């Protein structure tokens, strides 16, 4: 984050303004990514008019950065109407998240014309057999990369977003090289989000501890490995008084059905814009205010953890594990992979979960107490 944006974020936090919102326009998708957390059936998306009304309310509330995502946003026939409204009438700073397989020259030119700030495209591998094996759509890598070129040729800012899983573990270097070749940015994220209905089975696709350790020691990714993997210093009191992340503080998420959540990764419903004004949900929802009230010092397990000052703990993932004030195990794994020191949560789990194979004497009552014999 740039210094100025950080300054604006601090100001927005002080003024209780939702500076940045992700709005999913649809959960429908033309890919079937193996790790996706969404139910792709349409359960009553907001109409064009409803979305325009919501955008008005968001602009009024002070939202500046609007990320339009899905599902696949280009499946909405009114996408350009919405984009035009968001950019030309309401002057949002618009970012798009897409698989881009429906973007051709015409769409790229229109995106440029509308002054979209950035387009994030999911690319899982430089090899078609791996990328298409994740999206489950043959030919999808080629189409996404073609779109990448169309957008880049328009002078647009393009970001390749790579989710790291065991399935594409060997390919992140290839994706980075591809991004460099195309002159676009590249991000890598080992976080897998549980399904919205709470099903956590997709987490098994994530990278294991050994792989994480390897990734975190790749200087091409993390820069100074010693610094990145250093054991964190004890946090200052001011750090413990800080907020865990921006969810519910300066950012939030709205689903295609109008439900408002603190973040796309934080499945705590706080209200619905079909029934309430966006600003009322933001300011007065009990759930939003509860999220907002939490400080680092209020996290019972994490405050006792070595990693508290440097952990990337996601309160939404923690909520998915049952407690928004609890640890998020995926981030514990990351901290452990970086430093080699288990988190307080990991240690507590080890204490609480005895070994699966135990050898101990069973005290079985003797059938005949007089004999005192053991079976």
């Amino acid at each position: 984050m740039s210094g100025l944006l950080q300054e604006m974020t601090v100001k927005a936090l002080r003024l209780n303004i939702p500076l940045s919102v992700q709005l999913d326009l649809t959960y429908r998708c033309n890919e079937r990514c193996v790790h996706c957390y969404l139910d792709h059936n349409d359960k009553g998306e907001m109409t064009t008019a409803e979305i325009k009304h919501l955008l008005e309310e968001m602009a009024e509330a002070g939202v500046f950065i609007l990320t339009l995502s899905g599902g696949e946003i280009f499946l909405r026939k009114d996408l350009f109407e919405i984009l035009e409204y968001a950019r030309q009438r309401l002057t949002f700073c618009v970012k798009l998240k897409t698989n881009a397989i429906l973007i051709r020259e015409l769409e790229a030119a229109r995106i440029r014309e509308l002054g979209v700030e950035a387009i994030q495209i999911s690319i899982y591998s430089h090899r078609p057999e791996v990328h298409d094996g994740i999206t489950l759509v043959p030919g999808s890598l080629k189409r996404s990369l073609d779109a990448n070129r169309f957008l880049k040729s328009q002078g647009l800012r393009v970001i390749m977003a790579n989710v790291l899983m065991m399935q594409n573990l060997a390919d992140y270097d290839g994706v980075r090289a591809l991004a460099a070749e195309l002159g676009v940015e590249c991000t890598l994220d080992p976080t897998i989000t549980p399904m919205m209905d709470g099903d956590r089975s997709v987490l098994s696709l994530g990278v294991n501890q050994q792989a994480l350790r390897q990734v975190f020691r790749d200087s091409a990714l993390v820069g100074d490995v010693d610094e990145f993997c250093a054991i964190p210093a004890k946090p200052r009191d001011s750090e413990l008084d800080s907020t865990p992340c921006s969810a519910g503080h300066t950012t939030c998420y709205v689903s295609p059905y109008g439900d408002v959540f603190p973040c796309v990764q934080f499945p705590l419903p706080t209200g619905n814009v079909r029934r309430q004004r966006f600003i009322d949900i933001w300011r007065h929802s009990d759930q939003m205010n509860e999220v907002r009230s939490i400080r680092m010092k209020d996290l019972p397990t994490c405050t006792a953890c070595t990693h508290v000052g440097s952990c990337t703990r996601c309160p939404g993932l923690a909520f998915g594990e049952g407690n928004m004030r609890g640890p998020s195990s995926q981030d514990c794994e990351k901290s452990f992979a970086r430093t080699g020191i288990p988190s307080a949560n990991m240690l507590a789990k080890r204490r609480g979960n005895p070994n699966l194979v135990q050898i101990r004497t069973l005290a079985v009552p003797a059938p005949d107490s007089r004999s005192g014999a053991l079976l």
Partner: protein
Amino acid sequence: MSRLYVARNPKVATRRLGGETMIMSGRDSTLFTLNPTATILWQSADGKTPLDEIVEKRICAEFEVEPVEALEDAETLARELARHEILQISPEPIADQNLSGEAR
């Protein structure tokens, strides 16, 4: 001195935040903030009102500044913003290009 006309670039993203204006340049994703005085200039930059009139009627009316000095400062600012393609400047009125950022 010839008159100068200023118009907001419709390609930029803008939002008011506590008296200031945030502007994201579409050209290079650079973020700018305008202080309350510059915000008035930005809001008044409709391509039709000359800069000296904006300074006289909007800036001098609201802030205790010398008109000559204020106009010099406003011209410097306008040229700087034009350099970043946030504002368009011209000696002639600028045609309406779906101007943005007026009330937000």
